[in-house]
């Protein structure tokens, strides 16, 4: 049975319109004008236990609104949601007991206290039995390599370490579902890899369901076999990452290193999208021209030192999809 079921979720906001000029604020006070923004126009999906699902979409597309509703901190205007058999906004306190949430942008730890003190406070707040807590604590400390930082105040931790502590904190009460809002934002490459590994392993070992939002396509490629693409309040795609690639044209890139300075780099069937000195990036559609055919043409046309063929970077695919979104 699905752990998260969402049917026709709708939400709109009335945003105040602000007048410009020195007396704008005064004018607004006397006469409030608002416009209605439809953040969610009816989205439907289900997530089963143990899945890691990535939620992507342009800023302001509605993905945070969707997460907020499912996490229980906002009511929808219409539609239904059931998480672990409960309606999140109707029964907030019972609901949040069984979920964990990590915001990439802010910590839920106590800034001036040692990490272990924050963990102990969370044990009290979630009413976790001592034995269970100690076992989970030992697990997260080992798994996320936190032994050395437990006694440091949170404010002294690097962002990468702090995120790992935040993730550990969200797991101490053994939630069934974990929500991650841009978990890797601002992290260096090593920290990103460590965090992804932690999430992946924990989910695989314990059947933890994970719903994460991100702008980092590597998060998606590394972690999620399933992607929800929300744009302009609608669910544009619910599928695998390859489905996302197929959504935009299936164009590929041929990168060529030329042997010497060649002025004319026109090639029939391909479009020059970028050039840096002797390096060219050509885009083509494999449906129109076969890859080996194009390489043969290129080899005939200019002196080539090296070449590679690549799928279009997923970032570009996503940017294209966002641009094409209604």
């Amino acid at each position, binding site marked *: 049975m699905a752990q998260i079921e969402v049917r026709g979720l709708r939400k709109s906001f009335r945003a105040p319109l602000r007048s410009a000029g020195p007396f704008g604020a005064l004018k607004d006070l006397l006469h409030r004008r608002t416009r209605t923004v439809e953040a969610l126009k009816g989205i439907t999906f289900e997530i089963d236990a143990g899945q890691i699902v990535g939620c992507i979409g342009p800023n302001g597309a509605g993905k945070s609104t969707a997460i*907020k509703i499912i996490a229980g*901190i*906002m*009511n929808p205007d219409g539609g239904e949601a059931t998480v672990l058999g409960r309606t999140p906004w109707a029964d907030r306190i019972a609901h949040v007991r069984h979920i964990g949430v990590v915001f990439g942008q*802010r910590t839920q730890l106590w800034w001036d206290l040692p990490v272990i003190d924050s963990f102990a406070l969370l044990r009290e707040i979630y*009413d976790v039995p001592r034995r269970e807590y100690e076992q989970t604590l030992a697990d997260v400390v080992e798994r996320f390599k936190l032994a050395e930082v437990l006694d440091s105040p949170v404010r002294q931790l690097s962002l990468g370490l702090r995120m790992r502590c935040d993730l550990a904190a969200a797991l101490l009460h053994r939630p069934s579902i974990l929500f991650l809002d841009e978990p890797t934002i601002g992290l260096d490459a090593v920290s990103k890899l460590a965090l992804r590994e932690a999430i992946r392993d924990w989910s695989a070992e314990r059947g933890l369901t994970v719903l994460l939002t991100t702008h980092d396509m590597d998060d998606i490629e590394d972690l999620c076999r399933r992607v929800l693409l929300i744009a302009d309040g609608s669910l544009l795609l619910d599928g695998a990452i390859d489905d996302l690639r197929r959504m935009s044209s299936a164009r590929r890139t041929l990168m060529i290193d030329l042997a010497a300075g060649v002025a004319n780099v026109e090639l029939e069937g391909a479009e020059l999208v970028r050039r840096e000195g002797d390096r060219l990036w050509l885009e083509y559609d494999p449906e129109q021209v076969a890859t080996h055919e194009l390489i043969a043409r290129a080899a005939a046309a200019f002196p080539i030192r090296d070449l590679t063929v690549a799928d279009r970077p997923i970032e570009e695919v996503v940017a294209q999809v966002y641009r094409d979104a209604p």
Partner: protein
Amino acid sequence: MRGVAGMIRSMRRYLRIYGRLAAASVRSQWQYRASFALYSASQLVATLAEFGAIWALYARFGSLPGWRLSEVAVLYGISNVAFALAEAGARGFDVFPGMVRTGDFDRLLLRPLPTAFQLAAHDVQIMRVGRLAQGAAILVWGCMGLGIGWDAARLTLLALCVVGGACIFAALFVLQATLAFWTIESLEVVNIVTYGGNQMAQYPLTIYRPWFRLFFTVAVPLAAINYVPLAALLSRPDLSGLPAPLNWLAPCVGAPFLAACLLIWKLGERHYASTGS
């Protein structure tokens, strides 16, 4: 019986969590010891200067009509001790509008505890001991100067006044914070009844105009926690003009007033959930 046992258990749990969270706040503040010491000292000086002004008034003009300095000291003491207690516990409500603006309030909604409880336990400030210590000192001094017999009933009444007053001031902080659910504009105007209420309650009610007295008796029942019960303490029912039992019971309005404000808080929370801003 099960229900009662469950209630006691959850009360104990809440008290334990409150204690832990308060202790965490204090430990956090302890990291900045110099700031802590300076703030406490400056508060003590500031509040001493406040009572100094009342004392100077007496030294210069003899008395407020019909009021001894020790009686005013009792009014002053009750109000300030109550205010300091409320301020220590309601600091979270003070910073709440900022939490709404930055989205930090969402974090409280993600924890399995009522939000009002979490705010009450948020950033509990012992720096405010300055006002508390000074208010308590003046209260004790005033009580000794009243020249009445302090029996158990009177001591209980005095404690009720302080608790009831703390409830009312806390309720006002809650009310002020609740407005932030609807508007993020600055709400300093409410300080008229919080800080202003404390200033008002330091003087005998009779010195004010009738409409002002009515406001602080009925709308914001601060008179009920010091002026009215003072009539009972002094055995002078003429002060309040109320039947004697009412003078004794007056401080009890604090708790329902706080409960009413917490209900309004709930409404605000519901509004927040539907607007998310």
